[in-house]
């Protein structure tokens, strides 16, 4: 421990070992994964154009600071947040892959399956408390345009707001392209295809590791 070059070389070795085990080896294991036929469908597939734009809105608003996209194979998550646990294959075409680490809001791995209505999503983005009582999610009014109703007839695209929204008479709220794209992205988040490494599961107990498929414990 008296010679800086030796310390430097030893540290280089440690860094190389850490990098090889936790970056290079996983890259060899599943870095070249491809889509496969699952239940007769090719999975995963790249998102459509509008959903791709929505992913950019999700990224730029930092939604992943509150929402994960990683359903676990345990009783706490299934079926509340998904039909099966999330796996690496679900993110194959994601760039960036916004897995999320902390859940201030619910997991979104299967939100497209849980909530299919465009209107619900748009209202939720405009003012979450309108659809989820006491929600702690902030509203995103800048994804919408407030404008005067022209000709006395509201636009077909306008949000159908309840009186509790407190919108002034003669005005309407129109979702911008960003809001529509974000909704499309959220609707595209689904884990409803059974995979070999993560079959559609039905939890049978409250046990932590209780993700079970047909009575058999799922592999984690």
């Amino acid at each position, binding site marked *: *421990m008296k*010679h*800086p070059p030796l*310390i*430097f070389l030893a*540290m280089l070795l440690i*860094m190389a*070992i*850490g990098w090889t085990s*936790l*970056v290079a080896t*996983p*890259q060899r*294991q*599943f*870095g070249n*994964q491809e889509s496969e036929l699952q239940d007769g469908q090719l999975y995963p597939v790249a998102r459509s154009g509008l959903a791709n734009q929505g992913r950019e809105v999700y*990224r730029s*608003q*930092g*939604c*992943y*600071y*509150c929402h*994960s996209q*990683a359903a*676990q194979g*345990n009783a*706490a998550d299934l079926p*509340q947040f998904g039909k099966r*646990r999330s*796996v*690496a*294959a*679900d993110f*194959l*075409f*994601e*760039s*960036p*892959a*916004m*897995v*999320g*680490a*902390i*859940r*201030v*809001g*619910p997991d979104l791995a299967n939100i497209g399956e849980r909530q299919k209505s465009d209107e619900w999503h748009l209202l939720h983005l405009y003012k979450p408390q309108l659809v989820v009582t006491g929600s*702690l999610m*902030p*509203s*995103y*009014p*800048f994804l919408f345009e407030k404008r005067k109703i022209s000709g006395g007839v509201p636009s077909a695209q306008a949000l159908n707001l309840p009186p509790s929204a407190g919108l002034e008479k003669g005005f309407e709220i129109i979702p911008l392209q960003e809001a529509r794209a974000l909704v499309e992205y959220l609707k595209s988040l689904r884990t409803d295809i059974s995979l070999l490494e993560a079959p559609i599961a039905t939890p049978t107990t409250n*046990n*932590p*590791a209780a993700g079970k498929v047909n009575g058999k414990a799922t592999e*984690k």
Partner: protein
Amino acid sequence: MMTQTEEKITFASMPQDAQIKSALVPCMLPLFVLGVVSLAAGSILALVASIKMHAPGVLSGFEIFSYGRIRAAHSILFTFGFVVPMALCVSYWILAHLGKVLPAGRPVIFLGTVLWTLGLLSGTAGVLCGDLTGFEFYELPRYSAAIFAISFISLSVPAFLTLIRRNVRELYVAHWFILGGLFWTAWILCSGLVLLGTHSLRGVMQSLSSFWLGNNLTVVAAGSFGVAALLYFIPKQSRRPLYSYQLAAFGFWMFFAFGSGSGIPKTAPLPSWISGLSSVCTGLFLLATLSIFINLWMTWQDSKTSQPYTVFFKVSAFFMLIGSAFSTVIALARTGYPLDFTFMPLAAASFWNSGFLGFALLGAFYTMMNEIAPHTGITLRWSKWHFWIALAGVLLIALGHALGGLVQSGKLSGSGNFSEVTRSVVPFMGISTLGQNLFALGNLVLLVCLTRLLLQSGKRQSAAFITWICERRGNR
């Protein structure tokens, strides 16, 4: 073998302490200003983010202040604005003093500081305008990552040169950690640029790399600078040698060997061997922090002398151990609802970042400023206020998150409804917000302290300049 005359000549040619200090001031002052301003700005953003956790309507009409963006901006300001610049100051100080040598490449350090500030401004502005990366563990836009990588080279090369040119050839324990920190930071900044900046990885490999990079940056690289500060200042201020060289060597190798593998959440959609390996590393990393803590504890425990800033370092050492213990519990506990998803990791991060790194670097800042400008007495007065306010702040932040996380995990392990459970932890978020208030207030105290120091120093410099002009005129 040196003769006595040669030794005397060598010793006489070494720069004196006062010379070293006056040579360090121009290198360190811009980095100090950057660090203190970033810390104050970052803690205000953290406060706003914390308020939004229980009052979502606050500033919700402003896109620039959306929760995700201010969290990202806070993370950049804290890590790249406060921790790295302050850590570099500590490195220059320790390397120059232990080596009895003037700091090398001072103009290069200044250039590096300017570039680093540019990287920080572009990164913070970028994320506030929506250019987030998608990786909360390593949130750094590509352009600022490139600027940081280049500027870190110009900031670290002078540190290496100072080490090489040292007059006292002995290599101390603090040297090891500084060497490790410099090397690790450079590696992480460069590999982050290659792995995430070039989009060369696909899918979940990007997330895995971001976990690995983020953990290595905050825990290993920044942590090693923090440990270096503790290992240098505690023995110096206690006026005792470090308790055990062997224990320090053990702690050093354990710190880097297992720290680099820790930090990958077990909830990530990755093969289980990866999170399993990482959990084991996190557990073994606790041994590293424990051995460092024991070494420091044994060093200071019987010391009769103590300086006013030693308390910063002692508290920092405690927070290092607690932060590491929290991370181990999160990684190894088998609960029905994983602790990783709760507020518990935020408690561990508060202990490590604001507690351990914050107090170690702040203690070093006050010590260095007091040695540079002892006549003012400003740091002595203000540091007491700062210490108590920041300590209460960090404890409340961590307490709120830890209790909230435990309640979340307990209720969601059963059949709790997610939204109801989240609402039930709002009071705990209130505790954290109170802590954020105090921590931000403490950092504003620091900002005021630095401003007063600079103003006084400016007045003295101006007075000296005016006297010099008058004398010249008188001579004529």
